[in-house]
């Protein structure tokens, strides 16, 4: 299923990585740390998932590797630098807006503790 912008479907891990990049974390290790912290340890991106997720996002042109990546560095996503493309920015924004609507509905349904809402 593609989104209205024509961007490819984003997996949960893909969204978490895009969110980390949008939040200013560009290094693989920082992306893993961000997701770990954000989810209070409930989601741990292992090196294999990080690598697959980033390879997929790069193939879908949602993310690109930055020039600051050392071309001689080992082929390990944890040690490389990434950035959102303009398509990636649009895709993560669209996904975030959809999720926000679901969170609003969850709030209305009384599923959330009001103190956790930030907006």
């Amino acid at each position, binding site marked *: 299923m593609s989104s209205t912008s024509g961007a*490819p*479907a984003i997996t*949960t891990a893909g969204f978490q990585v895009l969110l980390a990049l949008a939040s200013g974390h560009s290094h693989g290790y920082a992306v893993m740390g961000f997701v770990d912290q954000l989810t209070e340890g409930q*989601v*741990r991106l292992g090196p294999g998932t990080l690598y*697959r997720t980033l*390879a997929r996002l790069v*193939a879908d042109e949602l993310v690109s590797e930055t020039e600051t990546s050392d071309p001689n560095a080992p082929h390990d996503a944890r040690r490389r630098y990434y950035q959102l493309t303009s398509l990636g920015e649009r895709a993560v924004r669209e996904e975030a807006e959809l999720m926000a609507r679901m969170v609003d509905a969850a709030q209305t349904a009384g599923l959330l503790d009001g103190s956790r809402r930030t907006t």
Partner: protein
Amino acid sequence: MTRERPLGLGTHIFVTDAEAAVAFYREAFGAAELIRHCLPDGRVLFVELAVGPDKLLLSEEIKELNAVAPTTLGGSAVMLLLELDDVDSAFTHAVEMGATVEMPVAEMFWGERYGIVRDPFGHHWALCTRREQLAPDEVAERVPAEPTDGKWTAR
């Protein structure tokens, strides 16, 4: 429970020429290669491809591991199903790339445009695009009494 990704069902296929197969699936179905591992003798143990939101594992024929390709077996008992935005152009493109038409694209009674090709490596692919969102009862009402030219297409 801490879980980094959902558990699920994947597909793992065997081909005689992994390089050609990866190139075909990339060009025909938009597959992206994520990971590749080879045996010391150079044979491809597996390649992990992303196809749409799913993953497809592919191994080169390695008979001692019981990885035998359909072209060696003389057929395949499995069909891969790929849902696309535009089945007609994907189908035409796959055939231009060397796939064989097994069933041309047609409107099906269950609400899809649907066709079947056999890729150059012997695997059957049903390609489809959803046309209508039907309830199971609506589909049941549309089942043709008998096939037309051997096909269960829409009435």
